[in-house]
């Protein structure tokens, strides 16, 4: 089963941490990536801050076009910051990997995902 480990947190808090704390957080991500690499294929994405987002809102009626909205967006306390996804043997295994990057500034969600197509490489 493919599980996504999604990371939620308050944007900006990581950036406000002292450098050595940031490095500690990053070190755990590198550790996780190394561990995932060892067991097979995985992907991970880091979302840029919500301020860089543009929304496509549904068209108000059938004859209109979708609305592009630059903001303002609803004030959410926690934001979707990024995710990992890999084919894990079990939920327990996925949780074990998720624990590797647990920290006070992030809430993690582990949820099964279905493959929906496409392919991409980082190059």
């Amino acid at each position: 089963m493919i599980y996504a480990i999604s990371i939620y947190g308050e944007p900006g808090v990581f950036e406000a941490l002292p450098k050595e704390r940031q490095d500690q957080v990053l070190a755990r991500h590198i550790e996780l990536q190394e561990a995932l690499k060892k067991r097979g294929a995985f992907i991970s994405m880091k979302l840029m801050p919500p301020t860089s987002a543009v929304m496509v809102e549904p068209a108000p009626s059938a004859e209109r076009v979708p609305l592009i909205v630059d903001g303002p967006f609803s004030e959410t306390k926690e934001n979707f910051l990024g995710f990992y996804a890999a084919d894990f043997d079990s939920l327990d295994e996925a949780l074990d990997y998720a624990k590797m990057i647990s920290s006070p500034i992030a809430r993690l969600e582990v949820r099964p995902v279905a493959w929906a197509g496409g392919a991409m490489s980082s190059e």
Partner: protein
Amino acid sequence: MSDWLEAAFVQHRPRAIAALTRVFRDVDAAEDAFAEACLKALTAWSESGAPRDPLAWLLTTARHSGLDSLRTSQRRAALLARYGEDVHTMPQDPPDPDEMRDDVLRLLFMCCHPELDRRDQIALALRIVAGLSVEEIARGFLVKPKTMEQRITRAKKKIATHPVAFETPSPQERGTRLGEVTLMIYLMFNEGWSTSVGPDQIKLTLCEEAIRLARLLVELFPAMGEQTALLALLLLQHARRAARVDRAGRLVPFDDQDRALWDRAAIAEALGLLQKAQRINHTGVYTIQAAIAAAHAIAQRPEDVDWALIEAQYAALYALQPSPVVRLNQIAAQARLHGPAFALKAMEPLAGDLQGYRWFHAMRGAFLQELGDHQGAIAALETVLTLGPTTPEITAIKEKIAASQKNLGPASG
């Protein structure tokens, strides 16, 4: 554990101080109340974890402790008598997003008091909004902490006696405030950037705080192209911080910078922001400057830089901001396209306006050197030395003078 909490406090500070300033009509009272709330959070959050809405928790706690101290303080009893009604009838925390947006903008705008010197405005914003210590700000401005303390105290008194309207601003008023505040943040970055080399590394703090404030503006006004572009511009500049000085603390010219040292993540974010800003389709001075910085950032090698695009952007900037310095930058781009002789000729009409501007003479020196006029180059470069260059600049200029003297050779020299 307390590191995480500190980071959360820093993140919430601008919004919290802004909302509390509206409640108490007094920046000092707001700062005290917020400090008190953070102190309480240190214990409460360490024991039972951070609440789901930390800002609301901090605001409620700060409002209560602020009220308590208002009651016991003689000085502030008057404030309470005047605004007590508002304090008690205040709606639940946190305020709605529109109100919060105007609160933060108002607080930043209060720091931009027109009677304050620009640097004092910046210092005040760093102290009140960013929450930097007086010592940190003093180091950033290369003054004694005592001096900075006095300047900040004086500036605070000035803004207290000249209060800004607390009503919801009109769209025009909001636009004016936003323009002023955006410029202040831009200048805060430049204050740090212009000398953040050699022994003045602390000045990078000013750059980082300016970026944080620019980010805050974009969070509050996400549909404003110019504010989005300012954040992009500052990120693009700051991305080059590691490459613009060498190990000896000397400035590295743009073309000689090791592009591997540029901060790729910052550049990627900035390019995303710039595309968003350009989509909003209001081409202002920050959007143009960000586009110029982006043209440099996306070039893999110095020879890949699209100088024609940059020249066109400077022409557009000059149309909005017809200053001789902008024109000089346009000419610098033209020099890449049409050569140094063309550029020297184009610079001539600016000689009067820019006679005290050291980059004018540094550019002239470089072009004359390129054309083999070493006598002229030395004269121009020596003028630069009389116009107050920074230590790393002096080193660079002296090296250039020495190179020209060598080229003059023993026969002619």
